[in-house]
């Protein structure tokens, strides 16, 4: 393991004032202490990935930010507001959209119902037409049961329903997991398009090759801590170190 693993990682300040700032985030599942002090910042319009091995704490970090995991301490500051003590529904209403790892498509709802389920929380969200331009498949499957879609279509639906809400920070948990390469490429184009449109994205990924096509910076998470930050344009120079972190 590189030396950086064993010492706390000082989160570097991004150029712009951060939209999301996480400091000394600790979290527990019951009695199990899972996050031991996560620190990172995300500037407005940035795409940032959390990379790491299975069980490193990436998904837990997202669940803590959105407030699904209530047993947490430290500081999570979103757009100037401290959210660590807020319940998930209030955090979402500040403008954070969450796309879970398992996609969270509701089987008792049609595609159309899944799409409009999250309420609009801010102006500036995409219209249905804009969403259908981005994901044309969804228009054709509007009245299908949500879980009858293919894995790729379900992932698109999970992302699409957040884009309607006006959320300006999107937490994307392993959007490419289990998908065919052609769909992964499509998800990559979508993230690039969202970045162009000014969305800020925190992306949890194990596939750093995919991450490198969309992200500005990568935070490496290991054993519940951020142990390194690598800029995307420095990724090639740090590839051995990254392999070591990820155990590739």
């Amino acid at each position, binding site marked *: 393991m590189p030396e950086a693993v064993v010492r706390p990682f000082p989160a570097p300040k991004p150029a712009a004032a951060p939209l999301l700032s996480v400091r000394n985030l600790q979290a527990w599942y019951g009695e199990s202490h899972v996050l031991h002090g996560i620190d990172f910042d995300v500037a407005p319009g940035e795409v940032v990935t959390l990379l790491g091995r299975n069980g490193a704490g990436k998904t837990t970090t997202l669940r803590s930010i*959105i407030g*699904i995991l209530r047993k947490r301490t430290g500081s999570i500051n979103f757009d100037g507001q401290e959210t660590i003590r807020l319940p998930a*529904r209030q955090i979402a209403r500040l403008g954070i959209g969450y796309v879970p790892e398992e996609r969270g498509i509701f089987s008792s709802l049609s595609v159309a119902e899944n799409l409009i389920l*999250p309420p609009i929380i801010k102006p500036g969200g995409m219209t249905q037409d804009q969403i259908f331009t981005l994901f044309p498949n969804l228009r054709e499957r509007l009245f299908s049961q949500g879980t009858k879609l293919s894995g790729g279509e379900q992932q698109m639906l999970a992302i699409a329903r957040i884009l309607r809400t006006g959320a300006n920070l999107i937490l994307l948990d392993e959007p490419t997991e289990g998908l065919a390469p052609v769909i992964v490429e499509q998800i990559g184009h979508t993230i690039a398009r969202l970045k162009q449109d000014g969305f800020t994205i925190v992306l949890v990924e194990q596939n750093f090759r995919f991450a490198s096509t969309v992200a500005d910076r990568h935070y490496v998470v290991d054993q519940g801590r951020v142990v390194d930050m690598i800029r995307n344009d420095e990724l090639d120079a740090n590839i051995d170190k990254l392999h070591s972190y990820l155990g590739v």
Partner: protein
Amino acid sequence: MFELLGVSPQVLFGQLLLGLINGSFYAVLSLGLAIIFGLLNIINFAHGAQYMMGAFVAWMLLQYAGVGYWWSLLIAPLVVGATGIVIERLFLSRLQNVDHLYGLLLTFGLALIIQGVFRNEYGVSGLPYGIPRELAGGNNLGFMFLPNYRAWVVVAALAVCIVTWLVIERTRLGAYLRAATENATLVGAFGINVPMLVTLTYGFGVALAGFAGVLAAPIYAVNPNMGADLIIVVFAVVVIGGMGSILGSIVTGFALGIVEGLTKVFYPEASSTVIFVIMILVLLVKPAGLFGRAA
């Protein structure tokens, strides 16, 4: 007139009507239970007592305030629903993270307390509640006499069931409800106030029981035990329809009422057990119920 297996049409249709009326109560009550079970995962054993409360609130409104049937049909469900909201906020919301058995035990205890209080206050002999003037009398259909009030009960129950089903299946509120039934945590992470949704849903389910109680008041004597007698059958209806299935509870409620009525005609000895026999058969063949989805 024709006879079917030696049974006169008057008897046959009379029992069918009785079955349909019982089915109306089964449907409205099991609908409330299904809604509550779907979202809260609580088997609301207090449902029978809340049905009884609806009848008593209507009786009290008339006795002490001179408020008649039609206003009671609106006010009593609101009052009983409000008590449900208090129960959910005070007790049930604290049981979210423990075994569902605790919810069952709590509501069973509440049912005993509520029934005990009313029994202590009003005795068990039953209190009369008249049929509203507008619905007095009936019509001779040739093959049977149809009392207006009983026809109204069937129509009102059917209307409430259809409207409730439409709200759950065709509106955004219903979509929230169905989604929260599947994954309440994620629905909360979308910014939807799930605890409020749960409270209002319990209140609505309980209000349905209160509504059924008001409908029942002019037919049965208003009695502290009227819910206790009915609730066991209603639970069987819910199990047959499929726990938490909205459509299942409505269809099964009406259908089993009719089956019960027909059994009274052709084999009266089995009329009080036929629903439980069907329940056993359904559990053997389709454990999730006729309309339920296997876990």
